[in-house]
């Protein structure tokens, strides 16, 4: 694999679901994207735009009834569509990982943080001694800037705040140093100040380990400030792509409409511009 091979290469990804009347509902309609190492790619869109499904398709974690196809779905040059489920599973966790919105539903409530981290590490490396395992668990917690890893390792998920729980999730997902991390609204359930702390930890990871990050969010302003590049999705398609710093000069009326619809503390206006959707956006991005 040469250095120019993108970490993730998706061409014309389509995902559809059967409907009650025997037809198909097209949820993702021809999404193409590429992600490089060290890159933070934001995918923004409203609910139902297909952004989360796109992320799940890469991990091979689509709902059972979903059907997908793609002209190309390659991870580090390897075609994912050619993999057996077992091979895909071997990639998950070790080479590609996902962080979901709410740590409350992603952590096991009856295992301590240390136990579930150890479980994850043992799966990746069954030969680890107890002592080495313990050391890894504490190191992983310290890596997400948890001050007192000993205490947190002994705590149960319900004893942690939302921000701390999300850091534990990140610790679990990133300890093996995945090359690709997909974060689906990882901070939407968190308070603004905690959100920033969690983003700083993701930022560390991209800088230190060269992880490629796909950051899925509905918050355009947050994505513009955090990512390198942004894709705007609408009705299962990519409508617009731009450098994050230039998102505020976006050209597509949908992107412009979304940006304008958010109230801005510094630029107050009596009435917020309401987005009027154009039927053509569905067909002709």
């Amino acid at each position, binding site marked *: 694999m040469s250095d120019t091979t993108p970490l993730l290469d998706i061409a014309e990804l389509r995902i559809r679901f059967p409907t009650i009347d025997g037809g198909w509902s097209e949820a993702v309609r021809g999404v193409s994207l590429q992600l490089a190492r060290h890159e933070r790619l934001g995918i923004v869109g409203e609910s139902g735009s297909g952004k989360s499904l796109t992320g799940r398709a890469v991990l091979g974690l689509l709902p059972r009834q979903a059907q997908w196809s793609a002209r190309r779905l390659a991870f580090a040059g390897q075609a994912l569509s050619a993999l057996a489920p077992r091979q895909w599973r071997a990639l998950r966790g070790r080479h590609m990982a996902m962080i979901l919105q709410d740590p409350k539903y992603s952590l096991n409530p009856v295992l301590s943080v240390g136990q579930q981290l150890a479980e994850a590490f043992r799966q990746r490396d069954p030969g680890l001694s107890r002592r080495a395992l313990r050391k890894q668990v504490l190191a992983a917690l310290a890596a997400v800037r948890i001050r007192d890893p000993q205490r947190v390792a002994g705590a149960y998920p319900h004893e942690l705040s939302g921000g701390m729980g999300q850091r534990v999730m990140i610790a679990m997902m990133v300890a093996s140093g995945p090359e690709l991390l997909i974060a689906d609204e990882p901070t939407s359930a968190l308070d603004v*100040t905690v959100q*920033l702390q969690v983003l700083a930890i993701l930022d560390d990871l991209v800088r230190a380990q060269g992880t490629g990050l796909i950051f899925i969010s*509905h918050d*355009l302003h*947050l994505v513009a400030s*955090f990512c390198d590049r942004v894709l705007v999705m609408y009705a299962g398609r990519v409508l617009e792509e731009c450098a994050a710093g230039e998102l505020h000069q976006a050209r597509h009326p949908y992107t412009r409409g979304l940006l304008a619809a*958010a109230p*801005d*503390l510094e630029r107050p206006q009596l*009435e917020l511009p309401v987005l009027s959707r154009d039927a053509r956006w569905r067909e002709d991005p």
Partner: protein
Amino acid sequence: MSAGHEAEMIRVDDLHVRFASAAGPVDAVKGVSFRVQPGEVFGLVGESGSGKSTVLRALAGLAAPWQGRLWLAGAELGRHRDRAFCRRVQMVFQDPYGSLHPRFTVDRTLAEALAIHRLDERAARIARVLEDVGLGLAFRFRYPHQLSGGQRQRVAIARALILQPQVLLLDEPTSALDVSVQAEILNLLVRLRAEHGLTMLLVSHNLAVVGHLCQRLAVMRQGEIVETLTVEQLRRGAVDHPYTRGLLLASRGYDRRVAEELLAAE
């Protein structure tokens, strides 16, 4: 009741709310005081667990035992909220998926409020309020699952409005909605306030939403108000408390330096 309170629509004096928990009592609200003038929109801002929603629920009569003194339009409130109170003060909740009965049509949801308060001319009132929240009669016999999130929140607002209240208590009314739908609901609330002269108390974690709707706000943290200020002051960044400053910085998006400071300050 002393003289001078008549001018205020809401007055909260030294409110305390304590919950029982497995680990012992938790003081959710610790001595909160503020006043809201008629026609004013007042914001309560804070992070989760700051006690902002509990203040709202104590006013609505939904919170666990509270202590302190509460007034509505000059009259002190007791433990019990009677029907007259509910006609004057109505609440709108965060999640329109959870706050509407899934098996009631819009018509039945609205009619129930009228029946409880023994109001007549039901069809005319329902038609009027649906028009008022921008839905129209076409929505009258739909079920919640046939509505989008924004339409559901409009129904929730219509249910509150149909009793012609003077005060709306709004608990994160737009945080479950997409930003384009949020804009529609915020515009609706601004218009309703102007047309009906409503007083509103808005609980939100979103400074931009508070800045859009409110004239004044109180910033809460761990059950206490750390600072009360005008939206104008917030906009200028003329804030006194470091916590308010932190919120303001954090709401501007990701900034590595600000994030480092927050991590260091932990």
